[in-house]
């Protein structure tokens, strides 16, 4: 009888005693849970421009970016011209993020005295974790309006306009390396000569390599697809350095384009980079948060 009682007590005690949770198990199970979190890949590029062209990045809603860009004269214009520093073209622009996924921008270039405007919309975002997606994609639509007085030409409103559409596709390959492909399409209402094409497709490639937390090396090349054989222009090429400090991004670069607006630099880049038609330039952007 005593034996039976002891057995019943022992069985009951095993049934009712809960397995104790060790502290390590508690934390590990929570970490495993958080692994499946969707993680958006951020900061593919430090700013909204790779060098001349746009990057996939958009600013957060309510952010206003003030942009100043300079392109000096040609390095091969000699010491007399201080290797181009005497000559400068400038673009000033304002870009406002209406929503996280939509930015509107306007600008004015001293080159050809052209006004430009654009809309930039984020379509897809690169993600890791549960929502694994390999690249980010942004669409860019812009136009430009040249106001330079040309007494030799018969110009009207329509002839001064040009349009550009771009698809920006980028992937943050690693913490240090990001790559972007930029298929573009430019339509110019007025072209320099009868043989030049009004419509031109251009394929751009850009990349950035991070040197430190706040600096990077950038590269850009835009290849014009099938330009007219008599077209004297060149493909745009640029090399640059980015320095980011708090609310500013400073970009210093060497490029063969003097224009800072897409409709112009994609199709009408006159500089032959390897012959020394190199223009030193910089972009400075300053971010202001207008509303959250």
């Amino acid at each position, binding site marked *: 009888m005593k034996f039976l009682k002891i057995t*019943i007590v022992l069985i*009951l005690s095993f049934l*009712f*005693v809960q397995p*104790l949770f060790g*502290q390590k198990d508690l934390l590990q199970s*929570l970490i495993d849970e958080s692994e499946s979190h969707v993680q958006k890949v*951020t900061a593919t590029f430090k700013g909204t421009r790779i060098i001349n062209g746009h990057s996939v990045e958009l600013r*957060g809603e309510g952010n206003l970016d003030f942009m100043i860009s300079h392109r000096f004269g040609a390095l091969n214009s000699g010491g007399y011209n201080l290797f181009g520093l005497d000559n400068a073209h400038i673009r000033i622009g304002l870009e406002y993020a209406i929503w996280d996924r939509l930015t509107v921008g306007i600008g004015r270039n001293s080159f050809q005295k052209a006004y430009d405007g654009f809309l930039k919309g984020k379509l897809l975002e690169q993600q890791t974790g549960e929502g694994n997606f390999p690249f980010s994609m942004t669409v860019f639509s812009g136009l430009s309006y040249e106001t330079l007085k040309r007494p030799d030409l018969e110009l009207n409103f329509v002839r001064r306009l040009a349009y550009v559409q771009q698809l920006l596709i980028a992937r943050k390959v690693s913490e240090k390396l990001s790559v972007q492909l930029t298929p573009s399409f430019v339509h110019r209402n007025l072209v320099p000569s009868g043989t030049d094409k009004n419509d031109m497709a251009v394929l751009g490639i850009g990349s950035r390599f991070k040197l430190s937390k*706040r600096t990077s090396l950038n590269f850009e090349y835009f290849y014009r697809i099938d330009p007219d054989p008599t077209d004297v222009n060149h493909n745009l090429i640029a090399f640059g350095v980015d320095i980011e400090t708090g609310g500013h991004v400073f970009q210093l670069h060497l490029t063969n384009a003097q224009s800072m607006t897409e409709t112009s630099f994609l199709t009408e880049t006159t500089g032959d980079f390897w012959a020394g038609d190199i223009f030193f330039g910089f972009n400075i952007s300053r971010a202001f948060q207008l509303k959250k």
Partner: protein
Amino acid sequence: MKTVLVLLFFFGGIAQTLSQSFRVESSTISFFSQAPLEDIKAETDQSVGVFNADTGDMAFVIMIADFQFPRSLMQEHFNENFMESSKFPRATFEGKLGDFTRENGVQQTVNVSGIMTIHGVANQMKIPGRIRFDGKKIQMDAVFPIELADHEIEIPTLLFKKIAETVEVTVHMILKTD
């Protein structure tokens, strides 16, 4: 026979009190940095956590990218430059509640000691706080400082007037059990 019945009731009683595992139902975790040129405040309401009301063991996990800032660029720099959240996506705390009682409706001042891991660096901490049991729910509150240097979070000299060396963290949580 009597002995068996007594024992049955005894073990039955224990079974009830042993299943006391509480999970975070809602939470607000924020931090505040005060510096001469700028005040920074960020908040997250996404956290997961478990508390064992019998042993006092607890563990919490928050994702760094969930912190919301009033300025989106500040949020991006916080993640990319300071917290390096692609390398260290979460902050964790595992600890044990010091002396406490299971009395309902009474707010108790308690101490939690445990390990806080931020930016991949773990530190032993003792955190004072308040806890209140309300049947199936528990309310936890704490305010404590975190030294950025303790977790190897670097502030570049250029920005020292904008970011404080010590930030004040405020935690408010409601946990519940089934």
